[in-house]
């Protein structure tokens, strides 16, 4: 398997859009070089991980945990909204989300 470890500036710009990061020109240039270096350095995982080794998402075995479905005390609306950048009528006020230009 040939692995691409060079990464273009346009690819970085695409990733930044996916991650909702408005990076400037200088950051895109720097990151294209650095990500290429890092990805080259970490290709070792592909040499080692050959065959049908099962992946581990966690170190220890996990089972889902439930609690009883009972009402219990929680944050008040004031507490929940206490760190909000903008509030209106006991709700988070946000910039427009509809009619965005594509």
């Amino acid at each position, binding site marked *: 398997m040939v692995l691409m470890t060079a990464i273009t500036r346009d690819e970085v710009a695409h990733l930044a859009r996916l991650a909702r990061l408005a990076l400037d020109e200088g950051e895109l240039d720097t990151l294209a070089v650095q990500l290429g270096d*890092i990805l080259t350095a970490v290709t070792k995982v592909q040499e080692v991980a050959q065959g049908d080794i099962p992946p581990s998402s966690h170190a*220890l075995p996990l089972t889902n945990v439930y609690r009883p479905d009972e009402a219990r005390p929680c944050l008040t609306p004031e507490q929940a909204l206490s760190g909000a950048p903008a509030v209106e009528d006991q709700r988070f006020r946000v910039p427009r989300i509809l009619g965005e230009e594509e």
Partner: protein
Amino acid sequence: MSEVVSLTAAELGAAIGTGEVSSEEATAAYLDRIGAVDGQIGAFLHVGRESALAQARAVDARRAAGEELGPLAGVPVAHKDVFATKDMPTTAASKILQDWRPPYDATVTARLREAGLVILGKTNMDEFAMGSSTENSAYHVTRNPWDTDRIPGGSSGGSSAAVAAFEAPLATGTDTGGSIRQPAAVCGLVGGKPTYGGSSRFGLIAFASSLDTPGPLARNVLDAALLHEAFSGHDPHDSTSVDAPVPPVADAARVGDVDGLRVGVVKELDGDGFQAGVRQRFRETVELLESLGAKVVELSCPSFDAALSAYYLIAPSECSSNLARFDAMRYGLRVGDDGTRSAEEVMSLTRAQGFGAEVKRRIVLGTYALSSGYYDAYYGSAQQVRTLIKRDFDAAFENVDVLVSPTTPTTAFPIGERLDDPMAMYLADLCTIPSNLAGNASLSVPCGLAPEDGLPVGFQIMAPALADDRTYRVAAAVERALSERDGDLLARNPYAV
């Protein structure tokens, strides 16, 4: 009050217990110490003078009322700024959370309070715990008390600097790839990473959820063990919390017996790239354990060679997902909301201004590693390596009780040296990462000063999951034998009291 500040946490807790000194006096002494030296060290992002004194008076009142309190009741602690505290700002050293006050306490915070520990303030760190030098803090650098031109380690570098400069007897940290053990090593402290799930992540600002583990930093093994016991244990608020008793780490720290213990030296975690003085002190300490009756063997964990690579795919992948919560909508910074911009534009501007360079680098790297077409080659392969590393540990622990290595390849490096070279910075975590990927218990204890620079060297002890007590037992043996040989090493630090 320098006498109070020079006591160990265990001694101070005992003195408060007998009424020899009040918690208020001890807390005031530490606040004075912070006032005197933190201008040079920069360990704290926030000092809660009034809240600390109020907590101390409350502990003194509980004691006066005849309440039975724990061994650390009334003892001050420095708290890493990654844990939610409802009475203090919680920023994770990021601009995106500047001045944010959470509406609830992390479980670790709540347990510190229940145990009567007095929270002095919040310590500096690499932004969102991403780094090995605390230089990635959005606020200021933190200096190593052994040499203020050098880094205090990271990401829990404010915590390690505070304890090494005697600004606090104890501190909390979190360890995702070595962020407790590495700062402990380079500041001459004891730092423990509990078994994953042994300490709660509830209210801990998430970096890489399958790796993040809260743990203690202290100037000696028993103090670290007492703090470990104070905040660990099952938490129903954390779905990955292990429902098992806390391993008896304080008892193990008091015993410190290694006679007959099987110790494995990991071949892959030592070598030519390591500083000569680090290798020398490490080898001497292994010989010391042998002289105390331990049976030492060298063994190989071949997959450890790929641990750093796997980590720098897994951790950024989880980070890119976890940090999606910083969307400028519900809390934290919001930039550019002038009525003309869409939510998506505001979100992108806020995240670009609110996150620092290392955080952005990891978010973009993680987004790449998880994206369709690359997922199998990067994230998928890294998860397979994680399985292999776990198998190497399992195989090793069939033959030995603990594994040992140097904690870090070098002593503290100069501030600024690795800032522009991410891969060089990442190498600081070479020896600590395997235990994060496998989730087992691990701890760093000082093993002397490197002859070439006079700076502390850390000795890492790794034990199976839920056998945390073994790491403390070995560390206590090392600590005792070294103090007989070298005297009080910490006293050679210019900020020692």
